[in-house]
């Protein structure tokens, strides 16, 4: 039993810390204020091999392990959860399922696009009437000769209006329920693909969220991911992996809020001394720190479980649930400890609090995580 990171994982943390402090911290507030997609940052993350880092070398990636992938998301999310979200989606929800379920030809073509080709990836599952109940999607895919024809729309798609490669779920046989769902790899250049409404969100302003519309969208038959009717399983497996990414993002937000609060309370003087000298502050910071350590333990356990090749749904749900609720708790406490200043955008904690909320909702709400956990323990 060893709680230490590998030498490579330590270097990934250091590299991502250096990159984040130099390249992302200076623009994080502006990215939030303007809701601008951080294109230059993402371009640099491609150059450094971070986008698609978990993809093996033979397909153009860096061959990094899943824990290193989580550490990269965590480090970025300490400062900018929007950028962390873009990375988590690209790596976990687009590269992940293609890597796991793609044919050799699909992997060669699409993983190269998602790494050295610098194309951003996305994942299309949610629909207006199919959120937590992902089996109720209405998007259809009909086989016509050498291609499928997709019709329907997907909502809340992270990377929606910047991505060029999408993993899309659609009903190939609506009569079969979840067994009628299939997965496809869709390029934004395919005829009939279009981007709909750009969402205006409470937080994660730099993360481009949009509706994706398929109108008689032509998808070559060879772009079926996995077998027909196996899409629901692919989606659930992908979300297990994606939850490790969101746990990492949430942990990063929780740590970022803690770091800001330590700095602020040591400098803020009230009643003649820094407020960090008051026991109320000390106890609160101690709890924030302790919970970060607990969350890190769950996150690392989930990532290691995935790396071991065993089923990891339970571990991923525990990590995602704990870390996302922690992100909300720590950011709320951080705003409180900053007082009135914390409620203004002069300090980053209000942004962190807005960014934290979504981690309790997407890639399976906290309620769904509790369903997954209870299904595994009862």
């Amino acid at each position, binding site marked *: 039993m060893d709680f230490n990171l590998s*030498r*490579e994982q330590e*270097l*990934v943390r*250091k*590299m991502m810390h*250096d*990159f984040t402090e130099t390249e992302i911290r200076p623009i994080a507030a502006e990215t939030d204020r303007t809701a601008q997609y951080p294109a230059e940052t993402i371009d640099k993350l491609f*150059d*450094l*091999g*971070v986008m698609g*880092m978990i993809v093996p*070398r033979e397909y153009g990636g*860096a*061959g*990094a392990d899943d824990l*290193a992938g989580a550490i990269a998301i965590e480090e970025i999310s300490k400062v900018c959860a929007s950028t962390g979200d873009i990375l988590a989606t690209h790596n976990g929800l687009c590269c992940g399922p293609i890597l796991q379920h793609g044919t050799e030809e699909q992997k060669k073509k699409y993983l190269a696009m998602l790494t050295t080709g610098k194309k951003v990836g996305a994942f299309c599952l949610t629909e207006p009437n199919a959120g937590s109940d992902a089996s109720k999607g209405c998007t259809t895919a009909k086989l016509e000769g050498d291609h499928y024809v997709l019709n329907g729309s997907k909502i809340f798609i992270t990377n929606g209006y910047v991505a060029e490669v999408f993993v899309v779920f659609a009903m190939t046989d609506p009569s079969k329920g979840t067994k009628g769902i299939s997965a496809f790899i869709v390029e934004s250049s395919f005829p009939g693909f279009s981007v709909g409404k750009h969402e205006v969100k409470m937080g994660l302003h730099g993360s481009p969220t949009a509706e994706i519309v398929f109108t008689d969208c032509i998808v070559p038959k060879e772009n079926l991911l996995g077998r027909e009717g196996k899409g629901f399983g692919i989606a659930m497996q992908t979300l297990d992996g994606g939850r490790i990414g969101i746990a990492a993002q949430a942990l990063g937000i929780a740590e970022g809020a803690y770091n800001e609060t330590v700095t602020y309370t040591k*400098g*803020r*003087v009230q009643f003649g001394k820094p407020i960090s000298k008051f026991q109320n502050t000390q106890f609160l910071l101690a709890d924030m720190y302790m919970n970060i350590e607990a969350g890190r333990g769950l996150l690392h356990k989930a990532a290691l479980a995935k790396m071991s090749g065993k089923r990891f749904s339970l571990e991923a749900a525990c990590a995602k649930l704990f870390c996302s609720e922690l992100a909300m708790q720590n950011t709320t406490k951080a705003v409180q400890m900053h007082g009135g200043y914390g409620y203004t955008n*002069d300090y980053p904690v209000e942004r962190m609090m807005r960014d934290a909320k979504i981690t309790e909702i997407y890639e399976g709400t906290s309620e769904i995580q509790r369903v997954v956990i209870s299904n595994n323990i009862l």
Partner: protein
Amino acid sequence: MKIIVCIKQVPDTSGKVAVNPDGTLDRASMQTITNPDDLNAVEAALKIKDATGCEVIVVTMGPAPAAGMLREAMAMGADRAVLVSAREFGGSDTYATSQILAAAVKRIGVEKDDIVMCGRQAIDGDTAQVGPQIAEKLDLPQVTYAADIQKDGDKITVRRMLEDGYMTIRVETPCLLTCIKELNSPRYMNIKGIYDTYNKPLDVFDYETLKDDPLIDPTTIGLKGSPTNILTSFTPPLKGAGMMLEGADHATTDKLAELLAAKHII
């Protein structure tokens, strides 16, 4: 063609500085970083590697943990590394250090097309002596304070940045250049580099490896061979860094008010 880059692990002066009773730095109790100017030298070497495909070798003298810094340089793109490390080398001042590093560079081998690069100076000693002394001991032409380096065959044109202006010098390889921060922005490690770095060669040159070199004389290496004597070490009193805002408009006064408000002064 190869480029040998001498780098140094230094205390992170943004943290607490600890000093031994003999006045030398207590490196073991301090966080360490790669000396900033040395990273500019690594970047300059890697840029030439990008253009020519040459080999880049990073060298440091220090205790075993300094190998971590060499791994980081290889994760940036350097091809191999040499750690010069021995009890006999401990406590060396700049004179003794340059004796030892010159012997190590000589052992690696400096050929007609090769370049040796160093940072201008280290943030711990701030002497800027080791690079020039290595050049002297190896009888290499040297150009210090390089703010721009253009390589054309065996000719290198270096723009030196001095306090009162610039000086442009053309030098032939082999030569030694010392680099300053204005030269470039050091690249980050990259993920592939990180996953490759522990598979790249890292040789250790100990006393046995270098002892036959005439530069390695017990009277000129280590603490005993160091002519520098430290009388006393102390941390100078902290002084605010200060900040200058320029302008005579509302934008500047608003900025000033914003800064003062952020510090809760107003």
